[in-house]
């Protein structure tokens, strides 16, 4: 969203603040979806975790995703300071870390198909939760790719809102995983 969306009234709330409120409300709505998934998990499985989930993969990809949140934060920081070069570098770092995370999930899925296929209760919950989360990661990666492409054309020198939105979305996906990790791997 850019400035061509409805111009604010003279006395009104600034465009960037309107955008921010919209984005946060979107997170609130999405949070309900993920809360519902967690509730379904406890409703069907109690606190049981299938022993076959790979604890090492879980820990590694969790730390990687957290690290990507840090690089995303630095990208936004650079964008606000107007440091385009650093911004692109950090966006690249986030993109790469996110892709590694996705690779970890894919590897975990490959193992999971043998151990607990979707036809089991744990498999159903595991594939649905990681699947919906991975879908959000993929959209986030697409968002980051577009940002990097446009940043090279110098589009965010004046208006850093798209970068802020992409980074915030990435953080949100990260927060979801903060809850999914213990719920799927630990408890």
């Amino acid at each position, binding site marked *: 969203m850019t400035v061509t969306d409805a111009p604010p*009234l003279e006395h009104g709330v600034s465009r960037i603040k309107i955008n921010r409120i919209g984005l946060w409300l979107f997170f609130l709505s999405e949070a309900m979806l993920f809360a519902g998934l967690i509730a379904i998990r406890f409703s069907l499985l109690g606190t049981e975790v299938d022993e076959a989930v790979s604890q090492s993969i879980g820990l590694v990809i969790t730390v990687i995703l957290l690290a990507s949140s840090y690089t995303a934060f630095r990208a936004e920081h650079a964008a606000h300071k107007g440091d385009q070069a650093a911004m692109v570098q950090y966006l690249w770092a986030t993109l790469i870390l996110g892709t590694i995370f996705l690779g970890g999930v894919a590897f975990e899925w490959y193992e999971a198909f043998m151990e607990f296929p979707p036809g089991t209760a744990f498999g159903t919950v595991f594939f649905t939760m990681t699947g919906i989360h991975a879908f959000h990661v993929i959209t986030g990666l697409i968002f980051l790719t577009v940002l990097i492409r446009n940043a090279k054309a110098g589009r965010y020198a004046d208006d850093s809102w798209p970068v802020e939105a992409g980074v915030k979305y990435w953080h949100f996906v990260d927060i979801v995983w903060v809850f999914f990790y213990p719920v799927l791997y630990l408890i």
Partner: protein
Amino acid sequence: MNIVRGLIGGAVGYILGAALLMTIRVATGARAWEVESVSAGAWMFALIGWLLAVGVWRYWAREWFGLELVPYTTTGWRRYLDFDTDHKVIGIQYLVKFLTMFFMAGLFAMLMRYELMDNGEALLDSGRYNAIMSLHGTMMVFVAVAATVGAFGNFVVPIMIGADDMAFPRLNALSFWLIPPVLIALTVSFVSGGYDTGWTGYAPLSVESDVGGLFFNLAFFTLGLSSIIGALNIIVTVVTMRAKGMNWMRLPIFVWSIFVTSILSLIFTQFIALAMLMVVLDRTAGMVFFDPASGGDPLLYQHIFWFYSHPAVYIMILPAFGITLEIISHFSRKPLFGYKWAVGGLLGIMGMSMFVWAHHMFTSGMAEALRKPFLASTELISIPTGMIFLSAVGTLWLGKIRLELPMLFALAVLFNFLIGGITGVFLADVPVDIQLQDTYFVVAHLHYVVLGGGIFGLFAAIYYWFPKMTGRMMNDRLGKIHFWWMMVGFNVTFLPMFIVGLQGMNRRVADYTPDLVGTNRVISMAGFFLGTSFVVFLYNFIYSWIKGAKAPANPWGARTLEWQVPSPPPHENFEVPPIILADPYGYGEPDSDHADLGIGTLPKIQETVEA
């Protein structure tokens, strides 16, 4: 033209998505084509293709890729077929779209009543009957959920708060253009044999139903997406775009009702998307959410479904409450009685609506310990509802009542909802509910709430705002004929349903015992009577739009902002941003102005129209 482009885009999206999924399926060793698995995934690609082709690409997405946007040059009536971002155009698009859906669903109801004229099989076998019953319910629920918010939330709310448009105009257009695919999915569903689960789509039946059930799931999912986006837009608009001086306690009550409805939509619609998604995954990906043999739980569906669908009842009814209060104040020439209590009632309903869902499940076999708390919470929610009623009745009290068309419909909402609400208290009572569950008593209750409340409210809004939307007056005489015809037809149709329900007639069955034939004849005849009343409406609606008398800016002498601008309003709504001076309901208060429009302020409009 634009729609053809969209259809092509959707088809291309579907084919690309199907090709991608089939490649994956072959790579994993599965059979390439399997209609459900492929269609479910390809539907998402088809949606994207449809949206891009219908205008998102030309007017929005090109800039993400550093391309020049296509300038928007459409004018005249073609704007209603295009990806237009003006909230007034979108409001009318919603209205026409959902009226179409409403009349289609009404025709299905006529078919059902024809079948039920006599016991035994007349026109439809039980499978066909169930398909038509399901489609009628689904489409009517869609209309009730989205028509008022979509049409009037879009058209009126921005003007009422003194804004020039919604906060995110392009997102607004996008949320409308997600609606045609809903109708397409339902059509595909019907053509491919329909589904027999009713609009509730309970698992495990819905998991086992034919392919038509899948497209029902996709339709509901798509409508959910549209609702969430639309609700988000309205919330941000009300929070950030209010004119100077329009503080929260000066908001017209209709804006409050749409605002509260949107919060409910934003939060709870995710759960219907989730429920639909789970059924689709059970159907297509071999998952076992609802299969007890493999560790699933069929009741899980009902919990998730009603966790959305009870708040959805308020999504259907709160806008009608808002319209009713709004109209009653303007047509009683009195300030809204207990404005703060009415707002409190709306907020109270919003807060409590998430704690009552299991009253739909008293006979489902859920844990018995859940019954009492849900009985109590359900009956408690009648308190905030009562506050809204009190506000309506208190406003009427000693008012200078003008029985114009919108007022008639508003009073009908009060009357019908009273019956619907009180029978709801019966049904909340566990012992009574165990007797009445799955009978026509529930059908009658539901129709009194949703049709008698929600849809009568929709028609009140249409008659009230038609002059503002089209710039022409509706024919008053035809309107009054329509009102009495509809009101009588409605009550004669649905009151006897309480009786056949008490006598044990089951809903969602094409047949019944011979002793109920007499009453069912009456119901069917009255049903056809009710159905034909809409012919009058439709004639009036189309005729008045084309040839009706030109409407003045403020035909009702109302004080809210939308009536202080020309009919229909200019593109920017206001010449200069208005400044709000007092609350909108200051009828009978000398020298009180709602707003300064910056054009020599507004004359005391309520006095100029009728002293």
